[in-house]
């Protein structure tokens, strides 16, 4: 297992760095164009299990390599880098575009909008590569949308693992939960 750090991994616990998956709001993760609904939830796991496919993996529909993954977080996070483990035989994604803090993006939106950052990916079957973000743009991320627009020639796109590295703040995005509009104060509403 090779990391990009210049030390041997046996000493350092790489898992601790890639721990942002703890802050992903997994029940609310949504993917578009996945062949098995709900399979996207299985790609967020600890670093050690990144090659473990027993929990399932994310696969796109036949003949269509595009994938869109919407990742909400339980609190605002700062993302330093992203790692993607793809499938073999050309099913790894080759291009990734990221959008921040926008809900309800679908494919036509994703193709037309300017992403916050875009990367050319390489085939990364061991999870050894990580892609740095422009950190200043990835502060205070409440949700992240990743659009995988292309792959290396396969019929479908497979993703086994999405790793996020960064820091979690304790801030929560302002969500207006319940408001009671009153013309006159009514104590019974405030119990």
């Amino acid at each position: 297992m090779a990391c990009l750090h210049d030390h041997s991994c046996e000493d350092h616990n790489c898992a601790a760095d890639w721990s942002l998956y703890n802050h992903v709001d997994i029940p609310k993760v949504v993917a578009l164009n996945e062949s098995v609904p709900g399979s996207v939830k299985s790609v967020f796991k600890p670093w050690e299990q990144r090659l473990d496919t027993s929990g399932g993996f994310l696969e796109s529909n036949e003949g269509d390599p595009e994938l869109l993954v919407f990742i909400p977080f339980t609190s605002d996070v700062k993302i330093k880098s992203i790692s993607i483990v793809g499938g073999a035989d050309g099913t790894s994604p080759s291009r990734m575009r990221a959008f921040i803090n926008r809900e309800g993006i679908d494919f036509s939106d994703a193709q037309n909008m300017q992403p916050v950052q875009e990367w050319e990916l390489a085939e990364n079957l061991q999870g050894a590569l990580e892609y740095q973000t422009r950190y200043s743009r990835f502060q205070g991320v409440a949700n992240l949308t990743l659009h995988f627009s292309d792959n290396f020639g396969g019929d479908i796109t497979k993703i086994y693992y999405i790793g996020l590295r960064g820091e979690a703040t304790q801030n929560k995005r302002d969500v207006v939960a319940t408001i009671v509009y009153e013309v006159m104060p009514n104590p019974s509403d405030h119990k």
Partner: protein
Amino acid sequence: MICIDNSEWMRNGDYAPSRFQAQADAVNLICGAKTQSNPENTVGVMTMAGKGVRVLVTPTSDLGKILACMHGLEVGAEANLAAAIQVAQLALKHRQNKRQQQRIIAFIGSPVKYDKKVLETIGKKLKKNNVALDIVDFGESDDEKPEKLEALIAAVNSSDSSHIVHVPPGDNALSDVLLSTPIFTGEEGGSGFAASAAAAAATGASGFEFGVDPNVDPELALALRLSMEEERARQEAIAKKAAEDTENKDHASSSNNDSVMAEAEPATNAADDDKKEQPKDDDDLLQQALAMSMEGGSSGSASVADAAMAEAGAVDPDLALALQMSVQDANMSSDSDMSKVFEDRSFVTSILNSLPGVDPNDPSVKDLLASLHGQGEVRSFLFLS
């Protein structure tokens, strides 16, 4: 998002009073059901023909607005299915609450002029954007329309979220047929609105077993279903036992049992209405034992009743009551004196029903029963309690 077909084909009267009216009723019913089942649901309506593909009301949860826009709709021109689905997709994309699931319900009454391939591409695009599609296929049905629409649904469907319903013309109103389909019941498994509408609409033979709606009265429906299953089990047991017995009395009793099944069924049903007040199984087994000991009848009828009760009587006290009555009816054919005992027995059983705290598992009670009955059968059904 509901797509209405208001093309010229809708003037036809093969659905009473006209296809368009039947469709409008069905749409109203669906809107009501959806808005009631979840307060965050929104419904929009658009036309596929008439003045063109246009959205009459954008997705809203206000039922009055939706019903109002259905007024004054004109019938004419031809339906444009592909454009309509695209417009519906766009309307859904710009919904206010992005958390809502997207669904299109299309009423397709006119012939479909598109290729299967084109429809499949449309379906794939819907599936890619996670939009579910329900199709109500009614009205015109040329040779290929059902297959084309099935292919469309197959292309859109992901994990059974899309459905298709074919409604042939006939006596049943379009809305009644739709009430029992997954388009209405959806994933929640039956909203209260749809269920109560079904109960009101159906007169005698509704879609539900026994004519009782499980949503309206779950206990009664459950009781009826249980008694039906036990009745079936009892029938098999008695038929088996009747086949084994060689006494000529059993020829009479088996034929009587067959006729008595029909009588016992309504008796069981009537008894089921009082299910809440029935005693525990223990009390009823005791009452069976005591009643049988009092009957002191022939061993043939006792063994018939015993086999039946041993197999089914442990579960349902009402069934036990019916069993007694049917056994008594069998005895009546052979022994006219039993009629008095029948009345006495029902009197006794009613007394025993009201006795609290009688526990047949008590050793002293067991000994009493063994001495009264003097046969092995008592032990056999006491084990079951």
